[in-house]
């Protein structure tokens, strides 16, 4: 299937859904699901159809440049990943969004974001890359704002940072054009080979700012917690799952497809090596946001901070430039997509059923009311932590191993500490939502509807599938790495085959299953316990008052008191400070226009005098 067909379907879907929304709501929902599923199908079908046949110049002359689309392993991999998560979110939206206003807008924007992202990965040149990037940016902005209230602020924050990034990217892209006269990604790789390292660094910086903003690398991350928590949950899933990871795609594209592995590794000397500095940024991005996540009480904010933190792992793996590390980075990207999307959907389901509550201090005990959501949450946090049998484990293992064998234990330490922070905070998420006492008012909460359960269960399946048989995605990643000139890994279906440092998920899986079976057997051997209601529990002789005795507020209080003084988001504070000062300056600037006509005339005459003075003093002409 040609990339053109995919894009046409994507954009036409967005348009049609909007129009259908004017006609009938069922038609709209149907079309939305249909087109997002059709995209998954189309992309899946086009697997392996790479090469020149699928390079299409769709606008031959855009101000003297060619706009082209192409399909290659990297593009295909990201495309299918985008399409699947988006499709799941759209299906989830069916019941989540039911009865809300402006649904035509909502669905068409969902599909437009999707189309924009597909456009990004399918573009064959940087101009179309930029165009689709921007389409994605502004449609995202509109979607974030959709929920109103504080979402508006989040949306503004997002779009301003995003605009800064786009400006930087535009400069980078057009500098490439000025230097080499082409923007075709395929040609740029050869063209840039001979340029000086300073120039390459400039390009990487310019692009890096754009990608970094989207990717929420540490000093550029501040939009993300707000945006993720304020967006509607299905879109948060897309946002955190794939949209943010477009930055990853960008980094991969620029660093390895264009600049090339060798140049990257030799950029700078010793400690001040480009990829080394990037890795440190990644490591910092892991630790600080993860611990900030620990302090959050808003379920989605907590997940959003984890989204930032997990991004650090990807950068860490990717920046290292070893086969294993990059594979880990890419693999972690899709893994993260699967479980963070899952978690956002779960939170969405809870939110849906409890009437919009996502404050962790006010929930609890929902396990009995919403078992599927609980299961999804459990699997999700296992993935997020990286417990064995989940896909998160494999990719993290790759990254850790890279760090240790490459001799960077400090980076590894930060990654590990980040993992521990993750464990603490996601357990809090699980505990405060599903475990403990069920508050009185949620007694009547019903199960999540089927259209929510399907995506949740689907992601659970994916998490385990890739966790036990990581070879499936890793094959595809291998294909990507081949095009970038990495040494091939010794892959097997169940992990990595290379001597003592090997990984065999199948063995671990068997061992765990057997151990499970044995323990279950043991349990059967013992006396069977009597089922009692959840509330009927030991409380030193008196019964526990229902709904009032749930330990969730300040769950990790001792730790909060210790670390919270150190974990203010000072970057965000700095941005606010700067914005505040800038506004002050703006206000002062406005005072130039005093409203007194004489002053304006004075300006005119001073301008004239200035010109004459300049000429007298410096002979400007």
């Amino acid at each position, binding site marked *: 299937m040609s990339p053109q067909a995919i894009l046409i379907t994507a954009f036409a879907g967005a348009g049609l859904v909007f129009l259908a929304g004017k006609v009938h709501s069922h038609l709209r929902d149907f079309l939305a699901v249909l087109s997002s599923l059709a995209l998954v199908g189309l992309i899946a079908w086009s697997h392996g159809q790479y090469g020149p046949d699928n390079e299409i110049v769709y606008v031959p002359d855009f101000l003297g440049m060619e706009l082209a689309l192409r399909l290659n392993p990297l593009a295909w991999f990201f495309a299918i990943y985008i399409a699947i998560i988006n499709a799941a979110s759209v299906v989830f939206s069916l019941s989540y969004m039911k009865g809300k206003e402006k649904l035509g807008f909502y669905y068409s924007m969902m599909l437009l974001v999707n189309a924009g992202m597909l456009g990004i990965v399918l573009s064959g040149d940087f101009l179309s890359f930029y165009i689709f990037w921007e389409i994605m940016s502004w449609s995202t902005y509109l979607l974030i704002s959709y929920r109103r209230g504080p979402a508006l602020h989040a949306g503004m924050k997002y779009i301003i940072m995003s605009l800064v990034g786009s400006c930087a990217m535009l400069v980078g892209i057009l500098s490439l054009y000025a230097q080499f006269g082409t923007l075709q990604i395929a040609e740029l790789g050869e063209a840039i080979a001979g340029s000086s390292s300073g120039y390459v660094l400039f390009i990487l910086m310019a692009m890096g700012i754009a990608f970094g903003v989207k990717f929420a690398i540490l000093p550029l991350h501040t939009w993300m917690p707000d945006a993720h928590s304020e967006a509607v949950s299905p879109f948060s899933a897309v946002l955190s799952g794939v949209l943010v990871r477009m930055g990853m795609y960008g980094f991969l594209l620029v660093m390895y497809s264009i600049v090339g592995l060798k140049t990257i590794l030799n950029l700078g000397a010793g400690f001040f090596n480009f990829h080394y500095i990037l890795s440190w940024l990644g490591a910092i991005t892991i630790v600080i946001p993860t611990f900030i996540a620990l302090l959050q009480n808003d379920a989605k904010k907590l997940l959003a901070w984890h989204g930032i933190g997990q991004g650090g792992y990807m950068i860490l793996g990717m920046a290292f430039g070893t086969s294993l590390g990059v594979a880990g980075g890419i693999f972690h990207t899709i893994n993260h997509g699967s479980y963070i999307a899952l978690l956002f959907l779960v939170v969405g389901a809870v939110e849906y059923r409890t009437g919009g509550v996502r404050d962790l201090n006010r929930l609890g005990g929902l396990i009995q009311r919403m078992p599927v959501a609980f299961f999804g949450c459990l699997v999700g946090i296992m993935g997020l932590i990286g417990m064995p049998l989940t896909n998160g484990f494999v990719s993290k293992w790759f990254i850790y191993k890279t760090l240790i064998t490459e001799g960077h234990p400090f980076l590894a330490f930060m990654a590990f500490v980040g993992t521990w922070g993750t464990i603490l905070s996601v357990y809090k998420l699980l505990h405060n939502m599903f475990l403990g006492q069920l508050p009185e008012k949620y007694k009547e909460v019903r199960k999540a509807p089927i259209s929510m359960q399907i995506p949740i269960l689907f992601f659970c399946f994916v998490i385990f599938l890739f966790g036990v048989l990581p070879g499936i995605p890793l094959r595809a990643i291998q294909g990507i790495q081949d095009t970038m000139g990495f040494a091939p890994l010794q892959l097997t279906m169940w992990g990595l085959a290379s001597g003592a440092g090997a990984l065999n998920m199948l063995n671990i899986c068997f061992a765990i299953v057997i151990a499970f079976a044995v323990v279950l057997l043991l349990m059967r051997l013992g006396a069977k316990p009597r089922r009692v209601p959840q509330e009927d529990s030991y409380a030193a002789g008196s019964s526990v008052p229902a709904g009032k005795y749930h330990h969730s507020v300040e769950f990790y209080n001792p730790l909060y008191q210790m670390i919270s003084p150190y974990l203010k988001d000072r970057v965000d504070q700095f941005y606010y400070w700067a914005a505040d000062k800038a506004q002050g300056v703006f206000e002062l600037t406005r005072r130039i226009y005093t409203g007194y006509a004489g002053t304006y005339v004075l300006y005119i005459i001073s301008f004239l005098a200035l010109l*004459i003075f300049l000429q007298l003093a410096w002979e400007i002409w």
Partner: protein
Amino acid sequence: MRRLISLLLLLIVALGIFLCFSGASFGAEGASRAGKLTEDKVNFGRRYASRGLEENKAGNIVASVVVNYRGFDTLGEVTVLFIAAVGLAAILHARREEATPSKAEPASLIVFTGCRFLFPLILLLGAYIFIHGHLTPGGGFQGGAVVASGFLLIYLGCRGRGLRSAGVAVAESLSGLAFLAVALVGLAVGGSFLLNFLPKGSAFALFSGGVIPLIYVAIGFKVGSELGGIIDNLSGEAR
């Protein structure tokens, strides 16, 4: 403070202007001293002075330049005046609707009669000036201004009388259109806008200069009606 800054700035500007004149020759006078007033070029109007009479048969070279060589400017100029008249009417529109009819006393009989007596004479003088614009100093603008002064007199002397707005509208429309029509006929006949397509006659006769007197008459009417209209509007009389 403000005065000081203003003076300083103006001083710089003045210095700049002063230094302008220190260099090469400036203006027609400078050129003539440097002996650079050549006739084949457009150079300081030499060409018009030497060949204008022969080309347009109009004794007043300024009229020739105004109506023919730089007639396009004149069209713009007429337009500007038109804009001023229309704009002024538009701006004062609301005011005129609000205003109440003035109850000023009528002028004394002597003034009244004197104005009525002078009025046709003034019109005649104006007409004379614009009709002879191509021969003597003066022309459409000057004539038009004189005509307008006649209306001013009527306003001052004979309260309650004046131009009828419909009449003004028709006059300014038709005179403007006449100007354009003459110019466009030139375009149609000779392929050039404002072309002096009529037989030019012999110099210094009343019927000479081709289209120049025609256009001057049109301008005269137009300027007269527009200035009249402006006066009418500024007088603030209620309608």
